[in-house]
């Protein structure tokens, strides 16, 4: 019984990770890759950790597993946000199929400050969307 649960959990976990890796390889632009990978991998690893918690009946192991999941859940979105922002800021282009970029022109180039309202005096409002497939690869 436990074996089946373990097999199931681990399979789903491993597959999540596999999807994440396929995703990061296949997705056409950086933001999509980022978007796809962070959650799937967190989910996958989380499931694998639950396997471990079940496998080792110790409190300590369960605590560790929970701790790891907790850390992943806290840190993964923050990391994604940090790197995504950096990417956007350094002008990493969006996929050509992107339909809208409401962030365009909102940054203050000097201070890196981000406005919530659109100041019309900002000069550069053109979204950073790639024209061709090659631009993002």
């Amino acid at each position, binding site marked *: 019984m436990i074996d089946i649960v373990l097999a199931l959990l681990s399979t789903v976990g491993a597959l999540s*990770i596999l999807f994440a890796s396929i995703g990061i390889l296949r997705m056409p632009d950086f933001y999509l890759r980022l978007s796809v990978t962070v959650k799937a991998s967190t989910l*996958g690893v989380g499931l694998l950790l639950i396997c471990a918690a079940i496998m080792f009946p110790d409190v300590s192991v369960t605590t560790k597993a929970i701790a790891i999941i907790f850390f992943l859940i806290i840190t993964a979105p923050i990391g994604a946000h940090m*790197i995504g922002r950096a990417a956007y800021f350094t002008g990493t282009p969006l996929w050509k199929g992107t339909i809208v970029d409401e962030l365009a022109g909102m940054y203050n180039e000097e201070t890196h400050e981000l406005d919530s309202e659109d100041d019309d005096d900002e000069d550069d409002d053109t979204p950073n969307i790639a024209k061709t497939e090659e631009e993002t690869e």
Partner: protein
Amino acid sequence: MITLEAYFDYVILPILAISVMLVFIRLFKGPAVVDRVVALDLIITTGIGIITVYSIRSNQEVFLDVAIILALIAFLGTVAFAYYIEKQKDD
């Protein structure tokens, strides 16, 4: 009858290994540094998974300690890269 050990050895771990290699292809291709950073982050996360499975497989909980460290710290690298990639734009 397939044992759980064999299942881990011949299914789960290979899947994870293949995942790592796929991610590595992205790291190899880039094109931007940010892509590579994200790939690195994913490799590490996958690695946590691998360590977890390996720890189950070898019945050694001490390896989970390594996984904790990885989970806690990998994030720092990403943050550092992000921070300085952004800063680099300034100069």
